[in-house]
């Protein structure tokens, strides 16, 4: 098995931990509704929102926190969100319909991303704020509003290609937004269409974990807003998108040990840690490590609301060195954010049933086949490495102490997790997973914290295999209650599932 087991224990906050401590419920649900099964915990979303709100509070900033809908299809989560004061950003016609249907009023919805005419029309018709990517999109919107005599639309301009002064930051190319250098003609168009559009502000969304790149973009936005004001426009908001990250792992030490182990395995100084010697982007060239580790930084001490706090506290180098939050506040701008993954931190998990556990003749890792496809648990697809939690069918002893530590006498095992598709590539993870005990057919493997992008974002019905059903769960006192995702409304928890 190659030395000590390298665990990557998931970070479990009290709600998810408590849910995993109820194995009878989890087995009842999967027996009734099948495997895989997605569970969402709507109340956690409201708590996460509060954390973001408190960062706004610390910096005296007003503005909206928009949940990025595409991170999860759940109706329960959206309806729970509707019962808070948050907004939602939608990226398709169906998402917009879903948001309106869940009770989010148009003033709390923002339409972003690539848009087709139906999406634009419904957005304009219902007076949601529209984030525009290009001059062409502005033209299209203005034409639509005039032709169909729609109300004046509130718009944001999504910008990209920000330049830091002094130091050039190389960036991945983005297909979204108008280059800052082209903002002049864009603003002229806004002025020309002043009768049908109302400029609320500017926006950016950078796909990066780097604080400094985002700070550079925010400074760039402040400069464009100043340009807007000098033209007599009255912008009052900056939308800085999301990408604040999630900390998936309980222990930083495990993450460091694992990645060092992976490096050594790629260099051949320890046995492979992956199926078929996969290197996650790293490769060995004559004893030197080349390539880039294509993994999500799964242990991130600064993520979510804390990341936002650090970004807002970051000094604006090109604007006198004051913190970005102070600049936003002093310029009287609202701050809009669009966290997807970070708002769904600890909001759900995916349950999968063990179908088969097979030893190998060579004595390598056990082969464990799950009643799920790789797309159902898309952790790997997003480069997130995290161990599943074993929920035994027959808990050892009398108590049901799942997730509370290794059971007495249980030996750690190395396993490879396979899906139920008849494809060699259907690996739930490419890496060797270490579990504190050998799973048995009928046990559940629970993948924690999958609600953000890793639950239904990639799920398909390939080979007529079912994709996961979804339930919403909440606590009443010490008891977990549940209903089908679609049946959940904010009134449900009060009256109990009907």
């Amino acid at each position, binding site marked *: 098995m190659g030395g000590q087991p390298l665990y990557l224990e998931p970070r479990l906050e009290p709600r998810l931990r408590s849910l995993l401590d109820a194995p009878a419920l989890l087995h009842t649900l999967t027996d009734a509704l099948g495997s895989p099964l997605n569970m969402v915990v709507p109340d956690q979303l409201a708590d996460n929102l509060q954390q973001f709100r408190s960062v706004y509070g610390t910096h005296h900033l007003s503005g909206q926190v928009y949940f990025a809908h595409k991170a999860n299809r759940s109706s329960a989560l959206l309806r729970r969100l509707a019962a808070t004061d948050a907004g939602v950003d939608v990226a398709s016609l169906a998402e917009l319909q879903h948001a309106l249907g869940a009770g989010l009023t148009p003033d709390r919805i923002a339409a972003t991303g690539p848009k087709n005419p139906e999406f634009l029309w419904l957005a304009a018709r219902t007076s949601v704020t529209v984030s525009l990517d290009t001059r062409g999109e502005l033209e299209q919107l203005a034409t639509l509003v005039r032709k169909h005599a729609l109300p004046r639309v509130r718009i944001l301009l999504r910008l990209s290609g920000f330049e830091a002064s*002094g130091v*050039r930051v*190389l960036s991945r190319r983005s297909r979204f937004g108008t280059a800052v250098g082209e903002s002049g003609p864009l603003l002229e168009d806004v002025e020309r269409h002043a009768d049908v559009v109302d400029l609320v502000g500017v926006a950016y969304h950078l796909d*990066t974990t780097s604080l400094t790149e985002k700070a550079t973009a925010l400074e760039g936005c402040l400069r464009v807003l*100043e340009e807007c004001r000098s033209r007599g426009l009255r912008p009052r908001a900056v939308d800085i998108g999301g990408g604040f990250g999630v900390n998936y792992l309980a222990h930083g030490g495990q993450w460091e040990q694992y990645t060092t182990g992976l*490096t050594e395995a790629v260099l051949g100084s320890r046995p492979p840690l992956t199926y078929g010697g996969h290197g996650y982007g790293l490769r060995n060239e004559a004893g*030197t490590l080349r390539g880039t580790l*294509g993994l999500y930084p799964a242990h991130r001490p600064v993520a979510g609301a804390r990341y936002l706090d650090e970004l807002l506290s970051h000094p604006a180098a090109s604007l*006198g060195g004051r913190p970005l939050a102070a600049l936003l506040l002093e310029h009287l701008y609202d701050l809009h954010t669009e966290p997807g993954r970070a708002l769904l931190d600890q909001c759900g998990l995916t349950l999968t049933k063990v179908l088969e556990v097979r030893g190998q003749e060579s004595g390598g890792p056990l082969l464990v086949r799950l009643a799920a496809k790789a797309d159902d648990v898309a952790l790997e697809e997003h480069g997130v490495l995290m161990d599943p939690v074993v929920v035994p069918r027959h808990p050892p002893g009398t108590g049901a102490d799942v997730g509370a530590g290794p059971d007495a006498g249980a030996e750690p095992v190395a396993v490879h997790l396979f899906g139920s598709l008849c494809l060699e590539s259907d690996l739930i993870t490419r890496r060797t997973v270490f579990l504190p005990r050998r799973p048995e057919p009928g046990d559940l493997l629970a993948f924690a914290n999958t609600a953000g992008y890793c639950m239904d974002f990639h799920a398909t019905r390939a080979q007529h295999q079912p994709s996961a059903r979804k339930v919403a769960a909440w606590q009443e006192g010490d008891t977990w209650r549940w209903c089908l995702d679609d049946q959940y409304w904010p009134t449900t928890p009060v009256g109990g599932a009907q």
Partner: protein
Amino acid sequence: MRYDSITDAIGNTPLVRIDPAVHGLRNIDLYAKLELLNPFGSVKDRAAWNMARPHLSAAAEGSGQVVELSSGNTAKALAVLAGMHGLTFKSVTNRMRIPEIKDLLLLLGAEIEELPGQSECLDPTATDDPLTLFHRTLSEPDSTYLHTDQYFNPRNTEAHFTGTGPEIVKDLDGRAPNWFIACVGTAGSSTGVARALREHDPAVRVAGLVAAKSDFIPGIRTIDEAHEVGLFDPGTYDSIETVSADEAIEGMLTLNRRCGILAGPTGGAAYFGAVRQLRAVDEELAGEGSSDRQSAVFIVCDRVESYLSYVRQRRPDLFGRPRRRNSPADLSDAEIRTAPAIGVTDAQAWIATGEPLVVDLRSPYAYAALHIDGSVNIVEELFEELLHGGLPFSRNRPVLLACPVGEKSARYAALLTRMGHPDVRSLTGGIIAWRDAGAPLVRD
């Protein structure tokens, strides 16, 4: 010493004995090789000059550019060398986390390209990371770049094999030290020196130091990062130990304050790692009762001045200053709560009749964008500084203080009141309340 060119001053740095009263080793003489005294400030001057020298004149004819993946000292030396030969220099890096070094490089005329952070939504099929793209540009057929390639260039190691190493032997009266302790960055100095010393005496023991994985020490790699360096060969080192950033700073302070050696954190890490490693050896020697003294050498890679912000971030206590008079920090919560304040409507009337001096505490950029007509802008930091000296305006003139939400202005209203101003008020709710009430803001 008279030279024709500054490059002649590269190398031949002093080897200075560390006072045993400081390190406490009784049977080992510890020496610091003061590479910080190279003309551009670091050990990297040697490698930069050795790598670039053969190609500079040819590159100058073709109006080329020197490029390197460097986060600091190599870039600094190459920028100077390029400039001296009429060339430009570009550094590409994602490790440049020291603002002073970045500024210094810009000052020296360098162009800096930073690699972007990792993607938040990974694309597992992506093959073109920015570093790969960079290497591709370098190898294009008509490329005029002079890429010094410090992580793979054998002339990096050679500079130390022919320079640094033999200098150490010469200064130890023709003997190699028993121990050589080196931080691993490009691995050039540790590999080159180790080879030179071992050629002299195969028994030399070489200790490599890397940064703890979660830490950041400028100029030192973590063990994972060391594997990405072509010059790095684990076989060079008899042991590889980690040093934390805190330990590096601790070592740096000892060198700075007790030895008069103005080393940066890398030199501090080397000193700390050396003493830690040698303490056990020293006790063994004492136990054996041997009369043989051993010697050890570590490298002081560069100077402390560039790392002030790095140290300040980790050890703010080292920069503690005495408390100053008239500071808003001295105020009690009660004083702030009961500070004289005035709402927007009353303030408008007061401005019309009482002619208070309206002081806007926001930044000049925000003030220039929109402000209360007739107000003056004294940015908060400046205002605080002014107050340390006393009241900055007459007691006879009423004052209205404004900030974004009325929080900071309340503090200063309380402070000015305590300082004896009879009629100072804070604008309740600040400029935001003023705007929300529909009161006029101008840009003039």
